[in-house]
């Protein structure tokens, strides 16, 4: 597989799986406004995944749906951070959201500067939408900054946030968030957890029920 297709799939898988996890808050968020906000963010992340899969699918001679749903769990290239089920734990959810959006911003900046016009153009479009996700994450991080459960969750998840990025982008993220750049990585791409398998079982359940159907 080309380097470009690999890179697109990594980001698409991150966005799809995180979008799926975020959608688990629909109906159970701490208040109605958060139900609306988190559902909208989830929808947007899955939309970004769709666009990235479409670009990858053109290179790989397949379709976005096949890439999203017809691979086996061990073929997904997402990082460990996005796999955890945190629905019912708001502190961890916001810590992940804040860390992920910051890491995603670093990654998108690099993609926007890419020589590949298609990748750079799509990254620019995604980034304009992510601005609003970052605002939402910052607003919550400010609110929870002195909350011990939030601080602990940030420390716990930080080694996994670093693993989202290629090595040359990790220093930028650490500097921006004022967190240590030399933490030992956790949840690297390919080290899938059991949580991804159970998510996959549910996510692909309907599609697998009638293989090859035109929906």
């Amino acid at each position: 597989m080309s380097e470009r297709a690999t890179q697109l799939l990594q980001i698409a898988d991150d966005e799809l799986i995180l979008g799926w996890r975020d959608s688990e808050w629909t109906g159970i968020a701490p208040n109605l406004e958060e139900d609306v906000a988190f559902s909208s963010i989830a929808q947007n992340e899955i939309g970004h995944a769709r666009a990235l899969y479409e670009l990858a699918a053109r290179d790989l001679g397949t379709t976005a749906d096949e890439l999203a749903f017809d691979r086996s769990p061990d073929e997904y290239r997402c990082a460990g951070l996005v796999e955890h089920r945190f629905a019912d734990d708001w502190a961890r959810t916001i810590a992940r959201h804040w860390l992920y959006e910051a890491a995603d911003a670093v990654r998108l900046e690099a993609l926007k500067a890419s020589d590949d016009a298609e990748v750079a153009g799509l990254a620019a479009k995604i980034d304009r939408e992510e601005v609003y996700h970052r605002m939402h994450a910052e607003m919550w991080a400010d609110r929870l900054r002195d909350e011990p459960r939030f601080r602990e969750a940030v420390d716990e998840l930080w080694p996994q946030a670093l693993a989202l990025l290629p090595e040359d982008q990790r220093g930028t993220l650490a500097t921006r968030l004022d967190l240590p750049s030399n933490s030992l990585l956790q949840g690297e791409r390919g080290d899938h957890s059991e949580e991804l398998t159970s998510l996959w079982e549910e996510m692909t359940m309907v599609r697998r029920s009638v293989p090859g159907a035109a929906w």
Partner: protein
Amino acid sequence: MVTAAAIWDALAEIPDPEIPVISLVDLGVIRNVDVSQQRVRIEFTPTFLGCPALEVMKGAMEERVRALGGEPEVDVVLDDSWSTDRITPAGREKLRAAGFAPPAAREAAPPKLIQLQSQAFRCPYCGSTDTKLENIFGPTPCRSLRYCTSCRQPFEQFKTI
């Protein structure tokens, strides 16, 4: 013989599936129409990538082209060429009249939370700028929720992208 002008006229009659007061042409999502004999190629730029209406828009365009005797080919352009600045002046007025505050103009720097929290946004009902941010997100990814303290009416504000 189908003409580009006829296609543009037909596209101008397709309502946005989420906000039917405004058409796809008003929304500025049609970047180009190219007619070569029966073949009609439409370049279409998505608004928000997470918008659930994109497939519906594509299907509606194909249907209109077929009704005019053309063979549609809708190319989805996945780049940064659509902006809320592409909504036409007529489209902005239709949005406002329907109770949706049109988006602010795009600036060189990305929008900031402090701008959204400011009183720079006008209520589409009474025109007051005494409005506050309720939620960065709304019923679809493209809108925020605001509340007008002057006429005590919640309203939806288009995000700028």
